[in-house]
């Protein structure tokens, strides 16, 4: 089984190769390659990858069970099994020895299940959504390439292999945000996403260097080795020394900077709303369900490291909380349906980091998992609405669509139900787990921010639902003639994901003692969490009470939204209350980027280009004049033609050689 791991990324990569070549071959013809074939191939390979993941998961579960029963029998704790495959050396020089290898354990498995599963569904959806686009084959090829890179990201057996996928998904994100590249605004959004991510990636790399230094030269850079090193009690004393502790804090903070880039957290977050310039399936797959959650995945992957860096965890928790509330407030001001969802994604990612920051790695991953379902269905539903309204994205010109688009509405209702956290939806379980852990391990400050954010989430999501589906129609008369439900290829993913958004929470319904999800992850993140939790006493108040608070917050948010927006009321000029204030709030981080990043670079570049370069040229010229003054021979050289220069140079060289020869002989 183990030696099949390479197939997981290779299958979609193969799909990319075929469709890419087809797209390229047909690029200059008026009609692209046959959509049936392209669509079939593009869907086939992700599905195969998904099936293979299922098979591997089955085998891994069986292996885990047998190991577990063995260890109970023997009374010793045995290492949890994982599939690993090393393809060979990658980068070996000096002290660095990096192999190219894959590792499939329970954390990877869970990530892969929804990455390939939801990925396949979104491929299917895209076949319908992009059917009339001339770049259909190119789009499907990029999606396949993305999937291959995402699989490498989660399957890599060490941070450098992960980094390969990490930058690979960044590239695909760039290509897909700028997919409609004739519009330069899309290009700018794509470039911004890539550059902001690269700032984070630099942090990632240097963070890895520092981690490697802590472990000592010659240590292997695989997750297995890293975990083993940090779990080893023999290293505890070393980690306690101030120097190493400082190094660890620096290392983990730098790694976290990498995560803020990829997962759009403060301060590297504004690229994600801009990324909505890409086609909607891209927003659903890359910018909601999978890629942007990589940061949370990385932290869970290195849980053993972060468990030792409590300062960093505090920073992560507060950054997560601040991002969650900032994005939730910003989501309130948006008119573009996709922007509402984008800010919602940023906010939910903040929740995940908050969970990780209080040491609940498994809960963070659980929210990644549930969020993938409900946010994917919300985005795909939004895509369906946009499709139905011939490209309209402004929620001020929607309304009353519940009856016209029943399937889309039902799916989005399920997503809405899950995200606001009404009882027994997917988000209810995962968000309540986060709130509970934050309350117990994070303190009342973080808990109240989280609770307020939950209320805000309900507020902006309900506002969106009202304006799109329930309020009186404000759709242009002409557009409303063409409103139609989406084709079947788009409806099937909506149905499946909608059901998922309602049900997947039961994988870990803590209050009714369903904890399948937690058991899967216990081998991976369990030891790290045990360290963090050991300091704290028993449980807080009853989970039912905390859940009650959470639901109350959601209900308040919903009620306020109905109170404010039930008529879809807008002033004639289209501005909402708080117009200017909301602008400042929204653009705060863009402004920060400009002041801290773009201006200094531009100013220095301007000085170099306009002052330093001419200055150097001037010195050269002065030098030239001095030489000119020195003698008539040189003056001849300045005036004359190139041929003379060449002749003179050769002559000079010959003279020197002659001189040398005479001297020596």
């Amino acid at each position: 089984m183990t030696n099949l791991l390479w197939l997981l990324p290779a299958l979609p990569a193969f799909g990319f190769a075929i469709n890419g070549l087809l797209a390229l071959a047909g690029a200059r013809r008026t009609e692209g390659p046959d959509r049936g074939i392209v669509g079939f191939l593009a869907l086939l390979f992700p599905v195969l990858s998904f099936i293979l993941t299922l098979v591997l998961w089955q085998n891994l579960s069986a292996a885990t069970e047998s190991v577990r029963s063995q260890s109970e029998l023997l009374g010793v704790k045995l290492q949890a099994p994982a599939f690993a495959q090393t393809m060979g050396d990658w980068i070996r020089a000096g002290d660095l020895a990096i192999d190219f290898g894959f590792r499939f354990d329970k954390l990877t498995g869970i990530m892969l299940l929804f990455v390939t599963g939801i990925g396949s569904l979104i491929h299917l959806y895209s076949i319908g959504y992009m059917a009339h686009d001339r770049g259909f084959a190119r789009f499907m090829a990029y999606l396949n390439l993305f999937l291959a890179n995402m699989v490498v990201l989660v399957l890599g057996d060490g941070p450098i292999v992960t980094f390969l996928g990490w930058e690979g998904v960044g590239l695909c994100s760039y290509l897909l945000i700028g997919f409609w590249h004739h519009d330069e605004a899309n290009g700018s959004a794509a470039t911004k996403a890539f550059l902001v991510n690269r700032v984070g990636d630099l942090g990632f790399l240097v963070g890895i260097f520092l981690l490697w230094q802590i472990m000592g030269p010659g240590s292997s850079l695989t997750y297995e080795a890293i975990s083993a090193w940090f779990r080893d009690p023999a290293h505890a004393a070393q980690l306690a020394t101030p120097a190493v502790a400082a190094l660890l804090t620096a290392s983990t903070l730098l790694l976290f900077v990498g995560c803020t880039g990829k997962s759009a957290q403060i301060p590297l977050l504004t690229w994600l709303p801009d990324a909505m310039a890409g086609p909607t399936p891209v927003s659903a797959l890359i910018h909601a369900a999978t890629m942007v959650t990589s940061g949370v995945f990385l932290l869970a992957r290195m849980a053993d490291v972060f468990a030792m860096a409590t300062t960093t965890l505090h920073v992560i928790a507060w950054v997560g909380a601040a991002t969650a509330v900032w994005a939730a407030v910003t989501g309130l001001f948006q008119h573009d349906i996709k922007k509402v969802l984008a800010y919602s994604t940023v906010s939910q990612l903040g929740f995940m980091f908050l969970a990780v920051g209080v040491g609940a790695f498994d809960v963070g991953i659980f929210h990644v998992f549930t969020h993938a379902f409900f946010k994917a269905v919300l985005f795909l539903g939004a895509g369906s609405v946009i499709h139905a309204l011939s490209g309209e994205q402004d929620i001020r010109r929607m309304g009353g669509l519940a009856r016209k688009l029943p399937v889309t509405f039902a799916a989005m209702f399920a997503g809405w139900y899950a995200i606001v956290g009404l009882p027994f939806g997917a988000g209810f379980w995962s968000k309540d787990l986060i709130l509970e852990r934050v309350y117990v391990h994070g303190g009342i400050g973080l808990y109240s921010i989280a609770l307020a954010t939950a209320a805000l989430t309900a507020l902006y999501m309900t506002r969106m639902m009202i304006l799109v589906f329930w309020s009186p129609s404000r759709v242009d008369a002409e557009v409303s003639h063409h409103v139609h439900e989406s084709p079947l290829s788009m409806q099937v993913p909506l149905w499946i994901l909608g059901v998922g958004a309602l049900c997947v929470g039961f994988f870990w319904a803590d209050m009714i003692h369903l904890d399948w999800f937690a058991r899967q992850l216990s081998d991976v993140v369990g030891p790290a969490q045990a360290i963090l939790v050991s300091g704290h006493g028993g449980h807080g108040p009853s989970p039912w009470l905390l859940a009650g608070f959470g639901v109350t917050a959601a209900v308040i948010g919903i009620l306020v939204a109905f109170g404010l927006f039930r008529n879809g009321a807008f002033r004639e000029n289209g501005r909402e209350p708080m117009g200017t204030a909301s602008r400042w709030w929204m653009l705060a981080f863009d402004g920060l980027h400009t002041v801290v990043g773009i201006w200094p670079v531009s100013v220095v570049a301007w000085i170099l280009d306009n002052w330093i370069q001419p200055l150097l040229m001037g010195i050269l010229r002065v030098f030239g004049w001095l030489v000119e003054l020195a003698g008539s021979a040189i003056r001849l050289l300045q005036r004359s033609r190139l041929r003379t220069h060449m002749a003179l140079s050769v002559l000079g060289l010959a003279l020197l050689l002659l001189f040398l020869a005479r001297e020596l002989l």
Partner: protein
Amino acid sequence: MNLHLVLLAPMLASVLTLFLSGRDGASTLRAVLFFAFVVAGASFVPLAMGESTTELHTWLRPVGNLTVRWGLAADGLSAWLVALTGVLVPVALATARAHVGERLREFAAAVFFLQAGLVGVFLSVDLLQFYAFFEVILLPSTVLIAMFGGRERRRAALLFLLFSLAGSIPLFVSIWWMAAESVRMQSALALDFESVRVFLATVDPQARFWLFAAASVAFLVKLPVVPFHLWQADAYSEGPAAGSALLTGIMAKVGLYGFLRIVVPLFPMEAALYANFFVGVGLVTMLTGALIALRQREVRRVLAFSSLSHLGLGLAALFTFRPEAIAGVVVLVVAHGLSAAALFFLTGIAEGWARSRHIDDFGSLAKRAPVFAVLFALAGLASVGLPGTAGFVAELLMLFSLWKVYGVAVALVAGSTVVLSAAYTLRLMQKMLFGTSHTQAESSPDVPALEALSIAPLLVALVVFGFMPGPILKAGRPDLLTRLPSAQAKVVEDATHAAAR
């Protein structure tokens, strides 16, 4: 004898090319491409022969106290550079055909001549012989710029020539001084690298400093670094694009090669003493290049400053002397050679369509010339060091060693190239490939098959080496800076032969 064939092949090709009639364009192209492929085949001989390739022939019988020898030797580093030269030349000929038109014969002759000189530089183990080839390459490269360049070509060629000569004459004086000094000290001096190193260890430190400075300047100008870079942007943008590709792809590498082979091994004490200075110069060059590249209005000037930036980082990393850095710099030499050359080749083709060099005169090539766009994007991504391309391996190793020696702050400064290089390269891609068309030309052709098929292998190699950099890393072995490819063993052999006779 094999290494002599490697050197003779391009010389012969150069001469034979001049004998072509040159009247029939198609047959000239066929002939020069045939030559180029044969020469390229020969260029892989050193790689195929492995590490310990040496040939030595006594050029002049030892006269008086001085022995001047003719010797060729190749280790992994030389072998990769020779192979790189061999690979880039056919592509240069194929992509330049549209631009040089009827003068393909002259162009090819100059290119082969340049190739011969470069191969000579990379295979020399004798300082005087190295210097001779080092100067020989100036001739064809100046001719390429001056004959086949744009409107300001003469000025660019002159600037290039003057800078190069000014940079290399101190080196020549140093060689002459060493010869004279050894004569004065009544000791025999062979000028092969190994003997020179032994000799230099006996020289008065102050004198040795000046020799070190002279040798460094020669290669700093060739690389180049700030403030010796003033010739570069003009030469790269005024010369023919295919010629610029060779200039940046290989000739700039002579600068790094000179440090790896001559400056650091022959002057280990000075190199260690002034390492911080060179790291500083390298980083300043890297930052300056990247920042100026952001503001350039011509595509090839962006690429020129991009080269400045990348090779500046290479210099900085080299002077950490870490084994990772040595391996990284060797990978950089190959990776940058391939990616930068590919970008120049492609830019040359696009300039032919747009009849302009200005960055705003392209646009929407992704739509009009999709094959071009794919090739250009791949080359661009390879040049920004995307993981999965060889550039990433180089960047990772170089940043790692800078961090290891100088700490986090320097690593972050050096690492800013990760962001800045992406910034100017993506700007280039955005302006050239995307957006709307700014040209009058209603239908532009895509890259012709010959050009596409010759550039594509460069990009394939970049990806292959991105995943399997092993062979190149092996060439950048840790003792590269201390174990010179030497002809000593062979000398003994020659002596015994002579005695037997």
